């Protein structure tokens, strides 16, 4: 179990991480979410003792990272930077890491196979694409067969195939009982993979809760109706005890409405419908609202962050996850 106790990091007069305390739950995927510049990478580097906290500390099963014997066997990490020397082969990169932590040499071949880099094992990292470099970084993280894995923005710059691969990998790692701690600035990405959510903004903790809880709190569903006969429709709805509210472009919305019942109701009253569509409030919007005050670099486009525009296109994401058939 990784625990952060009042972790603080100050660069000059700028507080990058501000009194951050939370625990990373074991055996699940925890999404570490925040806008760019929120302090996610700094926090991750402090967990690995790469950056020294100004105050506070991180413990891993009660110990500091520097006191962990053969740390790669306990925590595997993929950090933002590529981390492999361009002139060294993928195999040799993993070999020196394995040797430093007394990991058997056979494990190098295993992880290369696991991430699909066996064919380029003897190629120098210089020629690797972004996706291959990311796979090499993940192979390095998995090298010591650790029970905790940390990924910093793992899908950045990946093609769709690579993104799907990483999502599946993280889920399968958690299914094996491992702790996965993954940072992202995209709520939509986290909604698909994380079981638990830690949100920070400007180095401060904004939320620390199970993903299901976050979805329940923040996803309002509604049904949008559009008709050339609004008065008849409103009468029918009110007659059925519903309270429609005006939606965009002259439409009407019914919160938590059932499209089947609403369609039947309109037909029974002879109302012509031009639209009958379920709407899902986006988690992205909820996240943006939560972090709106803490975005460091913002554009002054009105409504860019503060007033979320309805985006029904996104909503398809999380309910496929709920159904467990995420690809």
């Amino acid at each position, binding site marked *: 179990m990784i625990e952060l106790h009042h972790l603080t990091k100050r660069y000059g007069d700028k507080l990058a991480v501000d009194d951050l305390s939370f625990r990373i739950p074991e055996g699940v995927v925890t999404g570490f979410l925040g806008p760019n510049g929120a302090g996610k990478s700094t926090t991750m*580097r402090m967990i*690995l*003792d*790469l*950056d*020294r906290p100004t105050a506070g500390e991180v413990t891993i099963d009660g110990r500091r*990272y*520097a*006191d*962990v*014997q*053969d*740390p*790669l066997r306990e925590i595997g*990490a993929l*950090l933002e*930077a*590529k*981390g*492999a*020397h*361009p*002139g*060294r*082969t993928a195999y*040799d*990169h993993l*070999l*020196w*890491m394995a*040797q*430093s*932590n*007394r990991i058997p040499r056979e494990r190098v071949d295993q992880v290369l196979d696991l991430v699909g880099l066996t064919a380029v094992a003897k190629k120098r990292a210089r020629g690797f694409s972004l996706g291959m470099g990311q796979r090499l970084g993940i192979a*390095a993280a998995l090298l010591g067969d650790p029970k905790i894995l940390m990924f910093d923005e793992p899908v950045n710059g990946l093609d769709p195939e690579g993104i799907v691969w990483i999502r599946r990998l993280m889920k399968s790692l958690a299914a094996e009982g491992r702790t996965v701690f993954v940072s992202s600035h995209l709520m939509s990405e986290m909604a698909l993979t994380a079981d638990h959510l830690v949100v920070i903004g400007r180095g401060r903790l904004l939320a620390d809760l199970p993903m299901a809880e976050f979805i329940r709190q923040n996803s309002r569903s509604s049904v949008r109706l559009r008709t050339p006969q609004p008065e008849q429709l409103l009468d029918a709805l009110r007659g059925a005890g519903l309270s429609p509210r005006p939606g965009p472009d002259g439409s009407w919305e019914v919160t938590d409405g059932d499209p089947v019942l609403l369609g039947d109701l309109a037909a029974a009253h002879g109302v012509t419908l031009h639209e009958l569509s379920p709407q899902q409030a986006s988690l992205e919007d909820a996240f943006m609202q939560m972090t709106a005050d803490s975005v460091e670099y913002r554009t002054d486009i009105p409504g860019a962050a503060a007033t979320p525009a309805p985006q029904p296109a996104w909503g398809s994401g999380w309910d496929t996850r709920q159904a467990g058939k995420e690809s």
Partner: protein
Amino acid sequence: MAAFPAVLQSEWTKVRSIRSTVWTLVTTFLIVVAMGFAISLLTRLNFAQFTEHDRNPFDATNTSLSGIALGELAIVVFGVLAVGNEYASGMIRVSLAAVPQRGVLMGAKTAVLGVLALAVSLVTVFVAFFVGQVALGRYNTDLGRPNVLRAVFGAGCYLTLLCLFSIGVTMMLRSQVLSLGILIPFFFLVSPILSIVPVVKNVVRYFPDRAGSAALQVVPTGDHPYGPWTGLAICAAWAAAALIGGYLVLKHRDA
């Protein structure tokens, strides 16, 4: 704690798996031997035109080791690249995540690079000596003469100490470009030029390369107010200071 022998093995893998570091060592060998041979050969062919001062006493050992003036730059580059590449590629974070005890990481790295530099340096200077003596023909010397073995062995130590000095400097600067940009002009231009400027040269003779080169001389040139071993010790003190500085930077700064 990471196990020190395991980290040594890991650092050895790092060194041998990159071409640039391997080639700088090969280059050191080739430059020192080839240049020593060429200068020795030219010395034999032109010996008659040398001044009496240069001929008597003639330092055959130092002549065969003339290539060090240029070859030392190659081993400095080796030291800088072997350490600096980790900063250039962001690999230092991966290294420290694998071995979070920074003293252990630096100790193992310095030990591996130092032993490798010493082995290559000794082979290089002894080969350069023997090849140079062949080229010098009847003006040659041999290891049995007074101070000759000390000068050749001292040359190997000198190259190794310069390499360790560069390792320390690179760890302090954390950038191979910056380190090369400072060390190469320093050893190639600043130190040699200042060493002939009056007054200033009294200070410059305590610079690492000036002091260390005292160990290479069988016939003292009179540039050094100290003996060969003291010169080497001054050079070693520079290397130690650079390594301690490098350790403090590595220990206290964020990676």
